[in-house]
């Protein structure tokens, strides 16, 4: 199968990561909404986690693509 699932998956999680990170950054001035997550800006932190996960997946997919079958 010539579609490597890691590529779309990596992109999707990277997009999620960026969205959450940006949203976390914008809302960081409003501590009220983070009372739910016990004062942690979980959007920002978890956005970074998802972004890193997505980029790692993309890296492996690209590495596999360069390697001849």
């Amino acid at each position, binding site marked *: *199968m*010539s*579609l490597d*699932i890691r590529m*779309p*998956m990596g*992109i*999707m*999680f990277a*997009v*999620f990561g960026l*969205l*959450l990170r940006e*949203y*976390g950054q914008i*809302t960081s001035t409003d501590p009220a*909404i*983070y009372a*739910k*997550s*016990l004062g*942690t800006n*979980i*959007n920002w932190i*978890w*956005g970074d*986690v*998802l972004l890193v*996960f997505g980029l790692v997946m993309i890296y492996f997919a690209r590495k596999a693509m360069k390697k001849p079958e």
Partner: protein
Amino acid sequence: MSKMINLGVIDYVILCVYFMFVLGIGFALKRYMKTGADFFLSGRAIPAWICGLAFISANLGAQEVIGMAASGAKYGIMTSHFYWVGAIPAMVFVGVFMMPFYYGSKARSVPEYLKLRFDEKTRTFNALTFAVMTVFSSGISMYALARLFELLLGWDFNFSIIVSAVIVLVYIYLGGLTSAIYNEVLQFFLIVLGFLPLVIIGMKDVGGWHTLVQKLNVVAVSHAPSYQPGTWTHSWAHTGASSANPMGVEWFGVAMGLGFVLSFGYWCTDFLVVQRAMAANSMSAARRTPLIAAIPKMLFPALVILPGMIAIALHAKSGGFLPLSKDGTPDYNMVIPTMLGKYFPPGMLGLGLTALMASFMSGMAGNVTAFNTVATYDIYQNHIRPGQSDSHYLKVGHVVTVVGIVLSIGCAYLASAFNNIMDMLQMVFGMVNAPLLATFLLGMFWKRSTGKGAFWGLVFGTIVPILHHGLTIPLGATHWIKGGWLLFGHQPVHIYPVEMAQGFWAAIFAWVTCCAITVVISLATPRTKTDEELTGLVYSLTPKIVDHHEPWYKRPATLGLIVLAAAVVLNIIFW
């Protein structure tokens, strides 16, 4: 319509991004779907790690996530028996011992293996029960999703049904089994990454593991006088008597009912999961599929059971953490939705709900791909129009996919009309795999078993749990749905302390019946297949696979031992 959670724009954006990728994968795969083998079997070209994650994800439907969290609240860490006893050993067994025959026989489905090993009628019987079961399961998934989203978000019931059905239909129609498998991998990571922060925040809220244990001791003691303080935090210590634990089972019922019959029955014979391994790109990859899947499976209790334990501890402390059901007890099924609403701000909430949505859809899609393969190859090709071209069956497969989804929608509405009946059906279907396990064990490991023996064993093994359900009841049952519908006013043959014990014993009876009848009739009937015909299908007649040249991490037996050892360690830690 009142609702529990208000979604913000960011949450809808995340949900939409997910839908775009799911559908996008279907479209990207469309051009590779040229033959029936591509559509139904993924061209047997999928690497082991993807098959492994799909294998586990097909089982990780939302009922599993929501149900296991509910059990975590209700039974505590004893719920881990569904993982460390009720899954891992069976997954190792199917990978090491059974996969060589499934994959090696070149059968395209589990029923087709029965045809090769036994005969046509055994296959057809299994194909029909399986097809009915998958359609109902997928319908129940769809119904549960629509109900939950109605309650949580105030979404219209019909809207949720249509959206989930159309999305699953489109991606399977376009990309077949590969599309389902790829999406299952996506769903796997989404579920893990979506629920992990929930556990972390919940753990922080409750005050860490030691505080949780203390709080659960209070929960246990206040629950019933016969419970010891550690009942919620020990998996085996309180299984000496069924009255000492909330599951109402003793160690023998756990080991035999759950650990052997139910779990081996499910993991070793259910085409829904086995199909994922059959799509692997080599025998070695097929055998490693369940073993790779066992690693995350082993760790899932932290993700799905722990939230239930946290929720009940917090509920006991302050009351009102969980919503109450009609009879005044906490509504355990609301553990995950409640925690999502309580702990996740907008943004993360979108991710959490997307993960929930994903798990419902993977539950549906798994059933639909298993259904279309069995309906096309085992029923249509076999009984309706044999001997057609491959492209004909590919077309039929597409039509059958649509039919399967439409039937599932029908079942979803049936479920909304007769909620109770669906609960019962699901329980009875749980029993379908128990006799089948006996058929497979005898078929794969005893060359003397015959088609007649297998068929009648399977028929009686399916009837017995249904009769058992009609003749026994769990304690306090008032409705015929819970059992006892064959009694007509007479005393039940047996009263079980809880429903779960009734289920365990039904499975044990089903298995024993099927086993005994298959053995007796096989011995009384002549063999119909020669040793040559059974080569590759029966253990003693198949050359052993040599894998000494492979590195250790690619040898199924070595991997299996490591996984088993890890499961033993986990049982000991949480003894």
